[in-house]
């Protein structure tokens, strides 16, 4: 159990560093900005209590914010994602619920489930993030295109990470 906590802490640290030093520099033509750090929220265990989940989400967003001059933007988007996750999990839960030994990964629930789960939550996060950043609706479709393209990009990275971290 302690090992699991250390693993989660290391994952937090690694994803934040990766995001700040590498992925924030990826900015193809202003449309594609991957925010892979949401993978941390996606991979938290099912039995994480709700209050801890939302505090961890806030901390994650706050850490990203404080190093990239975007006060509040990532925090707000992460808190929203963390808030929606338990409800969304309930909607897409398998017939016999979630076993405490399982984790939200391909080996336990299959590729299709992971795709559905990751894609929707990443979309929610990116949608919130980009619209908070723009803070107006006058460029609605332009922003929406950015949301969709970046979501697909992040999603691809998430699935690749799944295959790298949890080799079959």
């Amino acid at each position: 159990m302690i090992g699991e906590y250390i693993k989660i802490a290391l994952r937090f640290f690694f994803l934040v560093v990766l995001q700040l030093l590498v992925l924030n520099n990826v900015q193809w033509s202003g449309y594609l900005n991957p925010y892979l750090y949401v993978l941390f929220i996606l991979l938290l265990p099912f039995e994480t209590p709700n209050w801890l989940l939302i505090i961890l989400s806030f901390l994650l967003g706050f850490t990203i914010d404080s190093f990239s001059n975007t006060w509040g933007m990532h925090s707000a988007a992460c808190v929203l994602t963390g808030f929606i996750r338990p409800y969304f999990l309930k909607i897409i839960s398998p017939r016999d619920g979630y076993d405490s030994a399982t984790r939200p990964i391909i080996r336990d629930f299959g590729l299709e489930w992971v795709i559905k789960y990751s894609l929707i939550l990443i979309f929610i996060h990116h949608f919130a993030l980009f619209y908070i950043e723009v803070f107006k609706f006058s460029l609605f479709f332009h922003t929406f295109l950015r949301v969709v393209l970046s979501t697909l990009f992040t999603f691809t990275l998430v699935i690749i990470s799944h295959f790298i971290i949890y080799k079959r």
Partner: protein
Amino acid sequence: MRNLLKILYTYHFLLMFIALEVISIIMLVQNNRYHSASYAVKAKAVSGSIYSTVSDFKEYLSLKEANKALAHENAILRNYLKSNYGTFDTTKISVNDSIYKQHYRFQDAKVVNNTVNKQYNYITLNKGTKHGIKPDMAVIGPQGIVGLINGVSENFSNVLPLLNVDFRVSARLKKNNYLGSVTWEGKDFEYCTLKDIPQHVQVNKGDTVITTGYTGSFPEGIMIGTVSSSKLKDGNFLSIEVKISTVFKTLSYVSVIEDLTKEEVTKLKTETEK
């Protein structure tokens, strides 16, 4: 009381969600305005040193282009060398004396962090209060305008660049001196918008847009960009799309400009505008 606790317990998730969102929004609103980057100064001291290591590495990757740009700038500067010009006659020299009263002081700085893909982009430079950088100083690049100094820590400074929707600078068309103001719409990092030009002004594609010297400590005549298209907006004024001359994506060295007469000018202004 027990009921209250019960309600708090039942809805603790929703309440925490609302509380944390409110905190985020407050941070967002308070800290993302012009002149309020002071909050970020402390984080900057840490992130600045990390970013400067990363940028040292990235510099190697763009060494070729940086060399090219520097060589080009050198060539332009050599054109201004005194030795390039003939001798002055005596009358001219006495007139030119006033030039030696320096108006602007330039200082070079390296870009250690830079974004172009957000609405509120910022640039971090590797010079700070230690090197005499102060808020509101102008920053220019080899190809033209970059932005204004916004927050300063001991070793690093934060620039509010043209590519930030909060940025605004007064500008004019070089050929006929009509005044306007330049802002960035947040859409494309290669184009900004020149507003407040009256509709009767003939604007052609390729016309040069330069600074006026009214904003911050920008000297007059710094290149902003060239006109790429114009259309009528709100009745009497044109909204002109300007192709930005500075290539923000590959920006690596900039000059910070200090206006040596600024104190005197502001003093005069406050005295007379009472």
